[in-house]
């Protein structure tokens, strides 16, 4: 080894941008799932400013993919994240939306949060909202984070976890 050997030529190929790879894998996985669920729909990759991969399912009559309180949508997202994480050996932030459901829901939650905060402020009584998935609770906490006279906490376990709005000084 080494004696009389020529200089080795090493070709270095730069790794392709990991996020781009993850995004196309995520999209492909979602398409594979939809076709096996017999749902005719297309998947669009939304380019956002965050590092999260945003996928949007577009098609007709996709309510079946959303389910009660978005349960089905969350299951799809959970499975896609799991498969992509298994393939890439790391967790990748992926967010899936169907026909703008999440966007509409976020708007509705923002209004609900402000209304409930007002109620808590005037009545001095805590209000507990219905159970919500993690990102919906997060939306509520964020919307109300800057309000001076109330605080928000999450109570309960798992799927029964809900946001409570509490007047400050009574925590």
């Amino acid at each position: 080894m080494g004696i009389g050997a020529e200089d080795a030529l090493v070709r270095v190929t730069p790794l392709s941008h990991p996020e781009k790879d993850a995004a196309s894998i995520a999209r492909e996985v979602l398409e594979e799932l939809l076709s096996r669920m017999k749902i005719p729909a297309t998947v669009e990759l939304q380019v956002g400013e965050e590092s999260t991969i945003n996928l949007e399912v577009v098609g007709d009559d996709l309510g079946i993919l959303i389910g009660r309180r978005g349960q089905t949508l969350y299951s799809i997202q959970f499975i896609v994240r799991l498969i992509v994480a298994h393939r890439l050996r790391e967790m990748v932030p992926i967010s899936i939306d169907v026909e703008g459901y999440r966007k509409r829901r976020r708007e509705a939650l923002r209004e609900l949060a402000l209304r409930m905060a007002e109620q808590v402020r005037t009545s001095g009584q805590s209000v507990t909202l219905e159970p919500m998935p993690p990102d919906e609770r997060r939306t509520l906490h964020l919307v109300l984070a800057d309000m001076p006279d109330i605080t928000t906490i999450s109570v309960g376990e798992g799927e029964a976890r809900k946001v409570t709005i509490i007047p400050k000084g009574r925590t």
Partner: protein
Amino acid sequence: MRELIEYIARSIVTAPDEVKVTEEPSGEWIVLKLEVAQEDKGRVIGKQGRVAQAMRTLLRVAAVREGTRAMLEIV
């Protein structure tokens, strides 16, 4: 329905070749039996059964699309 469960299971286990899904009619229902390698069982069930529950939710959609009802058993 079988292809859906097969695809998900094969994509999350360490021994995809050992994934087997069978479909058996049982009255109005179709029972899908999912078999994986012993060491992969935890992966298809998940913490607090979350993976199994999510698979069942997606299976329900596929079943509705095919005009039937389906049940998933992990054996």
